[in-house]
């Protein structure tokens, strides 16, 4: 039977706010920032040296030490989150037609914890010191590869590299793949491990990190975002298939919009027109208007231009109703996970819909004049949530918007 609707049936999250649905969502509702100074290596000389950190990642029981030593941290986190998501979905890949199981993951930077050590050995000692896994550990599609190999996934597979918008695109294209009949079920999401000396340097040199170590989107004092590490995985499958097997359905991926600003190689178009187009496309596809959105999750990148652009887009699409919509930027609590950030927002949205509770932390206490809607209102609101709009914007003017709907 041809599927016409794509739904989310399983969630897996490894994040600075915790691992697993309960721990993760519980910490979001507390509304307390968990960003802290990086001590994993000496970051004292970096202008921006705070992050959301995953300590004590326990994957030893799930995967052999022989495998783990061949991987960068971002592959390891993707494997752990995938295992959790498949268990949450009640899905055994061995019982599936593996040619019809797909995987689409997002990532921005690649596996630098592994790679930079090997490059150091190359220059200090020589070629023979470089690990034979250097190439397969670093490249951004490594998590897709490792998850595919571990579970025997042989279907439609991609890695999306689009800065902060990567995993948003990944999950949205997973929905498209299911509805297009290219796969029955897709492991979708993103992973990022940017807490290494070189990766932190790259992020610092982008100029987009907060040197104050504070993540305050739409706040007049904002000076960028704070990075975080982690992975978010969602199991996407057809609605009829999910219903037939009695799966728990968190949400339908009801609308998706994707545009480019075409304005600047690095900065967004401050007018917000591109993002507004993406938002309108997502609303239109979902059969919604802005007033139907119960919970708004902006991209909230925290930069001077990014937030101005997004604020203009939101004002353009929502109009006066922007001040009435419930909003939250939970990533301001635990960090922007770059290529995984969209996936984590979708995990948050699914849990919010399931539980009728929304994390409303925004990190914004002194809003810009046109951002009163973003002013923080504490940790959580209890409310029936039927539709969630989630934005994700990446460098160079990539704009994505997803509308999730409760089934």
């Amino acid at each position, binding site marked *: 039977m041809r599927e016409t609707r794509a739904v989310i049936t399983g969630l897996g999250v490894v994040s600075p706010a915790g691992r697993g649905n309960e721990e993760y969502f519980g910490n979001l509702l507390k509304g307390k920032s968990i960003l802290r100074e990086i001590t994993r290596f000496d970051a004292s000389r970096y202008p921006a040296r705070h992050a959301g950190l995953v300590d004590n990642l326990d994957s030893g029981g799930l995967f052999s*030490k*022989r*495998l783990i030593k061949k991987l960068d941290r971002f592959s390891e986190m993707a494997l752990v989150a995938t295992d959790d998501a498949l268990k949450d979905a009640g899905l055994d890949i061995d019982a599936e037609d593996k040619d019809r199981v797909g995987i689409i993951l997002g990532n921005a930077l690649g596996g630098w914890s592994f790679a930079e050590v090997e490059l150091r050995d190359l220059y200090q000692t020589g070629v023979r010191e470089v690990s034979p896994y250097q190439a*397969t550990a670093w490249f951004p599609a490594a998590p897709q590869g490792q998850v595919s190999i571990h579970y025997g996934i042989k279907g439609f597979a991609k890695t999306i590299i689009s800065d902060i918008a990567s995993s948003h695109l990944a999950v949205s294209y997973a929905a498209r793949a299911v509805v297009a009949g290219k796969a029955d079920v897709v492991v979708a999401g993103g992973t990022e491990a940017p807490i290494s000396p070189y990766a932190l340097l790259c992020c610092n040199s982008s100029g987009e990190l907060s040197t104050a170590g504070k993540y305050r989107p739409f706040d007049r004092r904002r000076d960028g975002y704070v990075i975080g590490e982690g992975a978010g995985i969602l199991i996407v499958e057809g609605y009829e298939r999910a219903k037939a097997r009695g799966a728990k359905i968190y949400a339908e991926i009801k609308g998706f919009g994707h545009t480019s600003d075409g304005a600047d190689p690095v900065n967004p178009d401050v007018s917000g027109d591109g993002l507004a187009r993406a938002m309108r496309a997502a609303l239109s596809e979902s059969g919604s208007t802005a007033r139907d959105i119960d919970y708004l999750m902006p991209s909230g990148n925290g930069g001077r231009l990014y937030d101005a652009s997004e604020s203009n887009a939101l004002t353009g699409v929502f109009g006066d109703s922007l001040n009435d919509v419930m909003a939250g930027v939970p990533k301001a609590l635990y960090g922007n996970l770059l290529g995984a950030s969209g996936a984590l927002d979708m995990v948050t949205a699914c849990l919010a819909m399931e539980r009728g509770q929304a994390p409303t932390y925004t990190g914004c206490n002194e809003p810009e004049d046109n951002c009163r809607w973003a002013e923080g209102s504490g940790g959580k609101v209890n409310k029936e949530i039927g539709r969630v709009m989630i934005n994700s914007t990446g460098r160079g003017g990539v704009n994505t918007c997803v509308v999730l709907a409760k089934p």
Partner: protein
Amino acid sequence: MSIEERVNRVLVDGIGLEPAELKQDACLKDDLGIDSTEMVEVIVALEKEFGLKIPDGVVGGTSTIKELVNYFTRTIQ
């Protein structure tokens, strides 16, 4: 430490094999699943352990642990 113990230590500590897998007649490729990439790691680790360069073709996927031990026993003597 004997040559056999040193070879086993490289395979366990360096490569991550389980001690229970290290049977003398275990073939590196067919029994231990060591593919071409991991074989590079094995050879470099053994060269470091024994302080010598292993000529191409001497050690490969079809080698067994016993053959590795025999090679180093002969070569070091």
